[in-house]
């Protein structure tokens, strides 16, 4: 990692750990906006910090560490998509987003169709859409990317129930939404390119979140094993437990290496999917083992362990859906051959 990225990581971590509360929401949102975290990947030509997608991943990793409840990662994704677009007034849109006006987008599958200039369908799992003014949506055929105001007739936004309390997700239902009332971001081939980049970045974003959360959780678990004494010795002295922690550490480090490798290479949808799959699977494994290694206290609501487990399980299903990844990665690999 470059010096710049290291500094960024340290500064975000300082803020996140300073809040000292997993799943913090408003305070992190405010500080993220104020400290310019949403600007890291905006190009210089648009007055951003121009640090590339790797920088948003660094931010997302640290947000994951704190199980951040503020929808900063979806804001980052929307901003990146707007930057890539040819929208004539994108500077205005960016200005709004950077001043804290939330722009959300679906973190799971959406199915929207355009018929006779009217939009129908649904989009699922938009983080923080309850407070958002607009959502970035696209049609299923990826021929249209548009901004829809969340406050308009024909659009219903309903909170989705999740066991994970560190993310607040909303579903959006579209009924005969008039196309001309929406802001068109891109159409045709350009829309397709933007959507496919957006989906890959969403994969990377979830991968980064998972790596951060998994790292934090493993540290917490080792701390517990080092402190908890049974049989007249710290649990951490038992090789059976040490080896499990070592295996988890290896999985986290390897997944993170793969994530940064994918970021360093030319854009590839297959690699992004591979990173999402590997990092989310690793987080799920770390969460599964960590609760076990915490023993009874891990089952208690007052302990933070379950917050990680629930986020890990949710992360597996966000993005393109749990069932899609493995086969899609294999198909992508075969096509590249």
């Amino acid at each position, binding site marked *: 990692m470059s010096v710049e990225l290291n500094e960024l990581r340290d500064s975000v971590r300082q803020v996140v750990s300073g809040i000292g509360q997993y799943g913090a929401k408003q305070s992190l949102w405010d500080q993220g906006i104020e400290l310019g975290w949403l600007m890291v990947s905006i190009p210089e030509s648009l007055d951003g910090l121009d640090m590339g997608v790797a920088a948003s991943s660094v931010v997302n990793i640290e947000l994951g560490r704190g199980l951040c409840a503020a929808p900063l990662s979806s804001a980052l994704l929307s901003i990146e998509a707007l930057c890539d677009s040819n929208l004539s007034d994108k500077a205005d849109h960016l200005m709004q987003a950077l001043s804290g006006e939330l722009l959300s987008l679906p973190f799971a599958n959406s199915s929207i169709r355009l018929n006779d200039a009217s939009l129908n369908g649904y989009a699922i799992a938009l983080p923080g859409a309850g407070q958002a003014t607009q959502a970035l949506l696209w049609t299923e055929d990826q021929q249209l990317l548009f901004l829809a105001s969340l406050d308009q007739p024909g659009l219903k936004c309903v909170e989705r129930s999740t066991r994970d309390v560190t993310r607040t997700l909303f579903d959006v239902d579209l009924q005969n939404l008039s196309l001309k009332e929406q802001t068109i971001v891109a159409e045709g081939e350009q829309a397709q390119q933007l959507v496919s980049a957006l989906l890959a970045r969403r994969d990377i974003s979830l991968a980064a979140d998972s790596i951060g959360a998994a790292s934090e959780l493993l540290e917490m678990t*080792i701390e517990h*094993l*080092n402190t908890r004494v049974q049989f007249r010795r*710290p649990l*951490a*002295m038992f*090789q059976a437990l*040490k*080896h499990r*922690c*070592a*295996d988890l*550490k*290896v*999985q986290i*480090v*390897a*997944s993170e*290496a*793969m994530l*940064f*490798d*994918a970021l360093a290479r030319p854009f590839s949808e297959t*690699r992004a999917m*591979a*990173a999402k*799959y*590997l990092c989310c699977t690793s987080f799920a494994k770390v969460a599964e083992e960590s609760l076990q290694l915490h023993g009874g206290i891990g089952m208690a609501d007052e302990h933070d362990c379950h917050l990680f487990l629930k986020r890990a399980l949710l992360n597996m299903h966000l993005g393109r859906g749990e069932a899609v*990844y*493995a*086969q*899609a*990665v*294999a*198909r992508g*690999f*075969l096509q590249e*051959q």
Partner: protein
Amino acid sequence: MTQIELEQFRRQVGSWLASNVPNAWRPALTNAEQGDFVELQKAWFTKLVEAGYATPHWPEGWPGGGRSLAEQKVIFEEVARADAPRLILYFVALYHAACTLFECGSEEQRQKYLPGILKGEIWCQGFSEPNAGSDLASLKTRAVRKGDKYIINGQKTWSTMAQYADHCLLLARTDSSGPPQAGLTYLLLDMKSPGVSVRPISQITGDDEFAEIFFDDVEVDVADRVGDEGAGWAVAQATLASERGLTLVELTQRMRYGLNILVGTLKSNGRLSDPVALADLGCLIPKVDAACALADQYLQKRINGTEQVGDASIVKLYYAQVLREFVALGVRVGGLDGQGDSGFMRGATQETGDWTLDYMNSYNWSIAGGSNEVQRNIIAERMLGMPREPKSWQLGE
């Protein structure tokens, strides 16, 4: 070297390999006689030495020497890309022996032994013993000082290619009064000395890469001691650290190219449209990518001088685990026909496409050079800060 110069160097190495890698070396080594194997290794070694690609890690002034770690990495990557034979007959000589001599040997020892290595003398490692594997420091082979000689008695095992070796890097006990690590001494032993006998170990693959070495009153000159008497443990650490990272860059890259062989097996067994097989492949690919990225980033850390304790263990353990998954998938999709015995391949890598053979060979990487379990201890204790085991199982002592 700038990035551009490094890429030029890569092209230079790549094109040299393209026209020099022995043709069809795998078939030539399938069920090959020992002599054929030695001949092929020797010819390939000679070519590499002449081109300067066998000794890039040697200091400037030696043929081929003085290359940066970044350039060495390029050579290993290109060797993997070209699917060239691994120099397993010469690896101990080129890396372990040479690096030990460069780091801890005397000038006389360097002048005496290094030119021989370039001419193709073969070295083996006499570290492990029947009762000293993971617990290397408990080794018992004795070296007793008598005038200007040491007299060696004992037994070594798992010594790769010892049956072909001219010299042995020997770790022997000169003192058993103190803690186990303190009484070890590092010696260079001539394998043709009277009293040395070698017995190859027949392996589950049909190959015999390893051997046992027996020492019966074997004499070693005191001048052939590396470092001080009793300092053998520290010298051995230098030996083991010599190729850290480079081999794993090569091996992980070979595994990545090996995915194509796996796809070939899937294809020939009609499994490419089987969603279960596809999902298995899709689960494996990110891990292979991760192993490559990990090895790459580890070496980058070494180049930048930011390596930390435990980093090397993580790379090795992850590679060993993913390699096992890789060959296990090969065995699974290889079907019943894959269970057929088509013999063995001398000096094979883990990507021959004979998946049952590859599967057996994959244990090399989870056992040799510090088993997975030892790596886990290192990671847990030295990286994660978890407490050490109680020193002895006889806790009352």
